[in-house]
C-alpha cells in the first residue's frame, strides 16, 4: 500500500537486457506498466536509431491495416472490439502478421481492380443505353430543324435542283456522348464560340445518378448529341469533348438499328450485373472474415511498435550482446519488475538473466502517487495546479476532506445537497456499466470523471445545510425552537396584528433556557433580522475555517522542512510565519470565540466590534467612545501592542535571516572546496600518467549532466537569494491579510446561494401555494415544473459550478501557497493499456 501523503520512493535503475531477451522483457514490462524509461540517445534522430527498421515495418503494417479498415468501413461491416486485449506478440509473430497483411492487401487490391474494370464497363454500357433511349427525341427535333433550314434556303434559292443538292450537302454529322451535368453550360458556350455557332447541341439530363468507378461516388450526368457539318468541325468538336472529359459513343443513325442495339446492350448489362454482384459478394466475404480481427491486429501492431520505440531508447554495449537502458521505478515495485524480467527472459528462451541495477543519481526523480478510482480525481485537482516535487507533502489527502467541506459551506442547502448526492451516487453505482459505453460527450465525461468528488460535495452539503437549517431555503423545526412568544405576555391577537413585535433575549420568559440542539434555530426563518444575524455568523465562521486552513498549510511546510532536513527553513521561515499569522489572525479567532462565549444579550449594547478593534490594534489607538470600541479586558492595550510588535519583528526576520545564513554556508563550502582543490592539484602532478583517463571520465559526466538537465550545485548569488526572499516575504505577509479576506467568499457565496433559492421559492412556487381550492391544485401542478427546472439549472448546476471554482481557488491559492512548491514532474510509465487507449481515440 502506498500512501498519498508523500509520493512513492523512486529508484533510478540501470537495465541490462540480453539482446535476444530484450523484446520479450520490454513487452512484459509494458504489460506491467510500472517503469518509466529514459532516453539514452536524445541526440540521435529518429531515423538513426537501432530499431528504426522494425518501427518502419510496423508503420507499413499499420498502413495496410488502415487500408483494409477503409475498405471494411466502405462496405459498412461492423468491427467489434476484441473481448480481451491480446498479449503483445512474439517477434516471430510479427513476420506472420506481415505476410498476412501483405496477402490481404494484395487480394483486396486485385478485387478492387477487377471491380473497377467491371464497374467501368457497366458505366459505359449504362451511358450508352441512356444515349440510345434519348437519341430518338434528339433526332426528331433535329429533323424538324433541318426541314426548317431547308425551307428557308428553299425560299432563298427558289430552285428545285438546288434544293435537292442542298439537302445532300446538308447531311449532318453527329457525335453522341455523356458529360458531367455541371459542365454542360460552359461546354455549350465553348462549343458555340469556337465553332462560331455552326454546331447544334441537344442535351438531356440522366435522372438516375451514376457511380464513378474510380472514386465510388455517385455523379449526375447528361446525355448530349452534337450535330455539325464537315470533317473539320468534327475534329474540333471531338477535341472539345475530350477537353471536358465527355465520353463519346458510336450511335447508329437509323431508329431501327438503335432499337436493336439497345436490346443487345440490355442483355449485356444484365450479364454484367450478375458478374458484378458475384465479385462484390466475394469482396464482402473476404472483408467480413477479417473484420473481427481488425481491432486485435491494430492493438498487436501498436504494441510491437511501442516496444521498439522503447528499445530505441536503449544503448548497445560494445559487444553488441547487451542493451543498456536507464529507467525510473518505484522502490516497492522492484521485485515485481524483476519477476516480469525473468518471465521475459524465459519466454525468449534465453539463459542469461536480465539485470536490474539500482544506481545513484543526482537527477530529481519523478513524482509518482499511487491513486485509485476514488483518490484519482483529488490528485488530478492538485496536479493541474502543479505536480508535487519528489517526496514533497502532497495536499491531495487533505483535499479529500477540505475540498467538499469548503464547497459545502458555500453550497449549504440540504435539499440541493441531496439532489447532488443522488446524482453522483447513481453514477457511482452504475460505474462499470457507464464506463463501458465510452462516450464522446466532453461535458458528460467531466461530470463522470468527477463522480466521487460530487458525491462527497453532495454529502457535505447535506450536513452544512442541516447546520444552516436550509432545505430548499426552508427550515425544519425538528427539535422545537428554543424561542417562543410567552403566552402571558402576548395574546394571539397581538401577535397577529403587530408586525414589529420582538422576542426579548434579555428576558428569559421568551427563551426555553436551552438552545436548539443541532444547527440554526428555525425561529430565525421568520425573523426580520435573519440576514443580519446570518451574515455576522457566517463571516466569523469563514474567518475561523479559513485561518485554520492557513495554519494547517504553514504546519505542512514544517513537515516538508523536517523531512528534507532543512533547519534553515524551520527557523527562518516556518517560525516567523507561524508567529506572524498567530499574532494577528490567531488572535482574531480567539477574540471571535471569546465574543461568542462571554458576551451575552445584556451586554449587547456595548459588545466589542472586532473589526474596529483589529483596526485600532494596528493604529495603536484606543478611543473610549463609542463603548463598542473600548477595551473589554484588562491589559488589552498593552497585550495587543505586544502582539503587533511581535508580528512586525517577524517581517525583517523572515526577510533577512535566510539569505544571510545561506551566504555563510556557501562561503564556508567554497573555502572547503578550495582546500580540496589544492590537494587534488598536488595529487595530479604526481600522477600525470592517469590524466588522460580522468579527463575522459569527466567528459562522460559532463555529457550526462547536460542531457539530464539538472546541475548538481547551483551557482549561489546573494542578490538573487535576497530578491527571492524579499518577494517571498512580501507575498506571505500581504498574502496572510488578503487571503483571510479572500476566505470571506465562503460567506458571500453561501449568502448568495441562500438568497437565490429563497427568491426562487417566493417568486415562483409560493405563488401557487398561496392559492386555495382547485386553482391552487392546478397552479401547483403547473408551477412546480419551472421551479424544479430553475432549481436544477441555476441553483444546482450554475451555483454548484461557481462554488466549485471558488473552492478550487481557495485550495490552489490560499491553501497551497503556504507550503506547496509543485515543481516536480509526473511519473509516466510505459504502459500498453494507455498506448492502446490513445490509438482507440484516433
Amino acid at each position, binding site marked *: 500500500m502506498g500512501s498519498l501523503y508523500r509520493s512513492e520512493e523512486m529508484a533510478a535503475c540501470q537495465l541490462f537486457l540480453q539482446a535476444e531477451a530484450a523484446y520479450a522483457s520490454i513487452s512484459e514490462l509494458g504489460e506491467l506498466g510500472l517503469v518509466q524509461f529514459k532516453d539514452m540517445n536524445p541526440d540521435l534522430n529518429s*531515423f538513426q536509431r537501432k530499431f528504426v527498421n522494425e518501427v518502419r515495418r510496423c*508503420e507499413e503494417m*499499420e*498502413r495496410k491495416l488502415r487500408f483494409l479498415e477503409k475498405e471494411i468501413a466502405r462496405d459498412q461491416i461492423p468491427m467489434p472490439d476484441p473481448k480481451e486485449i491480446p498479449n503483445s506478440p512474439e517477434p516471430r509473430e510479427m513476420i506472420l502478421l506481415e505476410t498476412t497483411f501483405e496477402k490481404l492487401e494484395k487480394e483486396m487490391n486485385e478485387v478492387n481492380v477487377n471491380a473497377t474494370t467491371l464497374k467501368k464497363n457497366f458505366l459505359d454500357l449504362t451511358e450508352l443505353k441512356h444515349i440510345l433511349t434519348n437519341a430518338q427525341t434528339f433526332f426528331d427535333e433535329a429533323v424538324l430543324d433541318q426541314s426548317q433550314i431547308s425551307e428557308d434556303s428553299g425560299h432563298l434559292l427558289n430552285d428545285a435542283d438546288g434544293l435537292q443538292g442542298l439537302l445532300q450537302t446538308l447531311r449532318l454529322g453527329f457525335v453522341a456522348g455523356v458529360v458531367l451535368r455541371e*459542365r454542360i453550360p460552359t461546354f455549350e458556350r465553348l462549343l458555340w*464560340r*469556337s465553332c462560331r455557332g455552326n454546331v447544334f447541341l441537344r442535351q438531356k439530363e440522366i435522372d438516375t445518378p451514376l457511380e464513378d468507378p474510380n472514386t465510388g461516388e455517385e455523379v449526375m450526368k447528361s446525355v448530349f448529341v452534337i450535330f455539325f457539318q464537315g470533317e473539320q468541325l468534327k475534329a474540333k468538336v471531338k*477535341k472539345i469533348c475530350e*477537353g471536358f472529359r465527355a465520353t463519346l459513343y458510336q450511335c447508329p443513325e437509323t431508329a431501327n438499328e438503335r432499337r436493336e442495339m439497345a436490346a443487345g446492350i440490355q442483355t449485356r448489362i444484365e450479364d454484367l450485373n450478375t458478374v458484378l454482384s458475384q465479385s462484390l459478394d466475394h469482396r464482402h466475404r473476404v472483408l467480413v472474415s477479417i473484420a473481427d480481427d481488425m481491432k486485435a491486429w491494430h492493438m498487436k501492431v501498436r504494441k510491437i511498435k511501442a516496444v521498439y520505440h522503447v528499445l530505441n531508447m536503449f544503448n548497445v554495449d560494445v559487444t553488441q550482446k547487451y542493451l543498456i537502458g536507464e529507467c525510473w521505478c518505484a522502490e516497492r515495485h522492484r521485485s515485481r519488475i524483476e519477476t516480469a524480467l525473468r518471465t521475459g527472459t524465459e519466454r525468449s528462451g534465453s539463459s542469461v538473466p536480465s539485470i536490474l541495477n539500482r544506481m545513484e543519481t543526482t537527477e530529481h526523480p519523478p513524482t509518482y502517487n499511487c491513486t485509485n478510482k476514488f483518490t484519482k480525481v483529488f490528485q488530478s485537482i492538485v496536479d493541474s495546479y502543479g505536480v508535487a516535487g519528489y517526496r514533497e507533502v502532497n495536499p491531495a489527502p487533505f483535499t479529500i476532506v477540505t475540498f467538499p467541506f469548503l464547497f459545502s459551506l458555500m453550497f449549504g442547502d440540504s435539499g440541493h445537497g441531496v439532489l447532488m448526492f443522488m446524482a453522483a451516487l447513481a453514477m457511482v453505482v452504475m460505474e462499470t456499466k457507464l464506463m463501458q459505453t465510452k462516450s464522446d460527450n466532453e461535458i458528460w465525461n467531466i461530470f463522470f470523471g468527477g463522480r466521487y468528488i460530487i458525491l462527497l460535495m453532495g454529502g457535505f452539503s447535506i450536513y452544512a445545510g442541516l447546520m444552516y437549517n436550509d432545505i430548499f431555503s426552508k427550515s425544519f423545526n425538528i427539535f422545537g425552537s428554543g424561542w417562543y412568544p410567552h403566552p402571558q405576555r402576548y395574546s394571539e391577537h397581538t401577535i397577529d396584528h403587530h408586525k414589529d413585535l420582538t422576542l426579548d433575549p434579555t428576558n428569559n420568559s421568551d427563551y426555553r433556557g436551552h438552545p436548539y440542539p443541532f444547527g440554526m434555530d428555525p425561529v430565525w426563518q421568520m425573523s426580520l433580522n435573519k440576514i443580519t444575524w446570518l451574515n455576522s455568523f457566517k463571516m466569523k465562521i469563514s474567518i475561523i475555517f479559513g485561518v485554520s486552513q492557513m495554519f494547517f498549510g504553514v504546519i505542512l511546510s514544517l513537515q516538508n522542512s523536517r523531512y528534507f532536513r532543512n533547519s534553515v527553513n524551520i527557523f527562518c521561515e516556518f517560525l516567523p510565519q507561524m508567529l506572524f499569522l498567530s499574532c494577528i489572525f490567531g488572535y482574531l479567532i480567539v477574540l471571535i470565540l471569546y465574543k461568542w462565549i462571554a458576551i451575552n444579550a445584556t451586554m449587547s449594547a456595548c459588545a466589542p466590534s472586532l473589526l474596529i478593534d483589529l483596526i485600532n490594534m494596528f493604529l495603536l489607538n484606543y478611543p473610549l467612545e463609542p463603548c463598542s470600541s473600548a477595551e473589554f479586558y484588562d491589559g488589552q492595550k498593552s497585550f495587543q501592542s505586544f502582539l503587533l510588535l511581535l508580528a512586525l519583528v517577524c517581517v525583517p526576520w523572515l526577510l533577512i535571516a535566510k539569505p544571510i545564513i545561506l551566504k555563510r554556508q556557501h562561503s564556508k563550502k567554497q573555502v572547503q572546496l578550495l582546500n580540496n582543490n589544492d590537494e587534488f592539484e598536488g595529487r595530479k602532478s604526481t600522477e600525470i600518467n592517469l590524466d588522460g583517463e580522468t579527463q575522459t571520465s569527466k567528459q562522460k559526466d559532463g555529457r550526462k549532466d547536460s542531457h539530464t538537465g539538472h546541475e548538481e550545485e547551483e551557482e549561489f548569488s546573494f542578490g538573487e537569494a535576497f530578491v527571492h526572499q524579499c518577494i517571498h516575504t512580501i507575498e506571505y505577509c500581504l498574502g496572510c491579510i488578503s487571503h483571510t479576506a479572500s476566505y470571506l467568499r465562503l460567506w458571500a457565496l453561501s449568502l448568495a446561494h441562500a438568497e437565490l433559492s429563497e427568491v426562487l421559492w417566493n417568486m415562483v412556487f409560493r405563488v401557487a401555494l398561496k392559492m386555495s381550492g382547485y386553482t391552487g391544485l392546478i397552479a401547483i401542478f403547473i408551477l412546480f415544473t419551472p421551479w424544479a427546472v430553475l432549481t436544477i439549472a441555476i441553483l444546482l448546476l450554475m451555483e454548484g459550478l461557481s462554488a466549485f471554482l471558488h473552492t478550487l481557488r481557495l485550495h490552489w491559492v490560499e491553501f497551497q501557497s503556504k507550503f506547496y512548491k509543485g515543481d516536480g514532474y509526473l511519473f509516466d510509465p510505459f504502459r500498453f493499456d494507455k498506448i492502446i487507449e490513445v490509438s482507440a481515440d484516433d
Partner: protein
Amino acid sequence: MNSLNFNIDFGYLEGLVRGFKSGIVKQADYLNLMQCETLDDLKLHLQSTDYGNFLSNEPSPLQVSIIDDKIREKLVIEFEHMRTQSVVPLSTFLDYITYGYMIDNIVLLITGTLHQHTISELIPKCHPLGSFEQMEALSIASTLLELYNAVLVDTPLAPYFIDCISEQDIDELNIEIIRNTLYRAYLEDFYKFCQTLGSTTADYMSEVLAFEADRRAITITINSFGTELTKDDRATLFPRCGKLFPEGHSALVRADDYEHVRAVAEFYSEYRILFEESGNNPTEKTLEDKFFEHEVMLMKKAFLEQFHFGIFYAYVKLKEQENRNIVWIAECVAQRHQTRIDGYIPIF
C-alpha cells in the same frame, strides 16, 4: 478596411494563417532532414513536423514526385479552406493570388500541345491552385485570337490577354512573350487592386509586388541576351509597378550583357547587394537563389504587422519556398548528391 473592423470579417482567417505559419518547417528540421540517407528517413522525420502523417498512406519506396504532390496538396487544402471562408475583399485578394498560377498553367498547356503532348498527360503537371474549368479545352486553339475568343474570354485572365492577341500562330518565342505580357498585366492589375484596399495591405503589397516586378524585369533582360527579342519588345514586357520604373527600365532596355544589368542594379541598394553576393561558381549562390532569399525575407516581414492581407500572400509564397526546399533535399537524398544538399533557402 481599417484596424478597428478588420477582425470582424478577417480575424479568424488571419489567426488561422498565423497558425499555419508556425507549422512551416524550421531550420533545425532542415538540419535533420539533411542527414537523411533514404527517402524513407525523410518521411520518418517529416512526420515529426507539421506535415504529420501526410505520407503515411504511401507505400514505399517513395518517389520525390509523390512527396512534391503531397506537400502541394496540403497547401492547396489549406488555401481552399481559407478561400471558401473568406469574404470580399479578401476573397478577391486570394483569387488574385491564384491568377499567377493560372498563367503558368495556360503557358504550360500551350507549350505542351505545341510539343504534341496530350492534355491528359499535361493536366497532372498543372498547379492545382491555378486550375479552371476551361483549362482542358485549351488545346483546340491554334492561334492566339482563337485561344482568346474560345477559351480565355470567360476566365478572369481575359483582360490581361487583350494585349497579346494576334493572328499569329503560336510558337516557342511567342509563348514566352505571352507569359511575360500576361504576367505584366497581372502584376500591374494586382498592384492597382492592392492600392484600392489601402492601409497596411497597400503598403506591404506594393513593396512585395514591386520586388516581384523588378525581379521579372531583371530576369527578362538577362534571359533575352542572345535571343531574337528586340529591345523595343523587351521594354513592353517589363511590369511597370516596380522601383525600377521608369529610369531603371530604360537603362535595362539598353543593356547588352550581364555587366550592364549589374550596373543598372548598382543604383538600387537592395538589388545591388543581391548582385554582389551572387556568382556562378559552385560555392556561390546564383542570382536566382539570392532573389528567393530576398523574397523570403520580404515575406517574413508580413507577419510583423497585423490587420492586413499581405500575410496570406506571404504564406503561400513561403509554403512554395518550403516545397522547393524539401523537394531539393529529397532530390539530393534520392540521387545521393550530398554535396549540394545545403542549397535550400532557410525560412525560419
